[in-house]
């Protein structure tokens, strides 16, 4: 298994739950946004509680959970910006 490092940026309610706005995470090569998020959901049940409302970004572009991530990518964890509508 080859590990790679991604930078995860969390905002608003997600940042408060995790306690910091930026976390470096080691994941397996070939991981997806969803795989990166499992790292957080396992440690922060409250974050898992709002998982359905979260929107994700890879390198500042909105991305789906199935999107793959590469070494050095920046993954954004974005709570809803406007009442009900995503980014």
């Amino acid at each position, binding site marked *: 298994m080859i590990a790679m490092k991604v930078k995860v*940026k969390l*905002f*608003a*309610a997600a*940042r408060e739950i995790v306690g910091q706005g930026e976390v470096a995470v080691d994941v397996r090569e070939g991981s997806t946004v969803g795989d990166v998020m499992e790292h957080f959901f396992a440690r922060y049940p409250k974050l898992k509680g709002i998982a359905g409302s979260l929107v994700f*970004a890879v390198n*500042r572009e909105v991305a789906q959970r199935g999107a793959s991530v590469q070494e050095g990518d920046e993954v*954004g964890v*974005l*709570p*809803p*910006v*406007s*009442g*009900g*509508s995503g*980014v």
Partner: protein
Amino acid sequence: MFEIVEDSLSIERAVSAVSKPTCGAVAIFVGTVRGFSRGRQVSYLEYEAYPEMAIAKMRQIEQEIREKWEVEGIAIQHRVGRLGIGVASVVVAVSAPHREQALEACAYAIERLKQIVPIWKKEVSPDGSYWVGMGS
């Protein structure tokens, strides 16, 4: 001109950034912090942004506007951090040869800002605090 700033917004700076000799109109929108929200008193707001992505999304809004209206300049400034009641949190200025384009494009810009630009606000009130979407 697209900016996320931590200190006071400047309407004059936004207007001068979009003013051109070819323009007959500059439409300005100023969003301010309201002291009440959904029946609750608000003590102050805390705005938080994903600055790099917010600026990219503001540029996307500019592109969308230029496809729909004949406008000259577009400026959006958004403030982040702790903001007291009555303080300006966002300024949008759009210049165009004629007022109809400027007014319509300015209204479009603030609506899209609320939809797609990653900026969040936390309402802090005497009985607790709540993260809300900008459009709430």
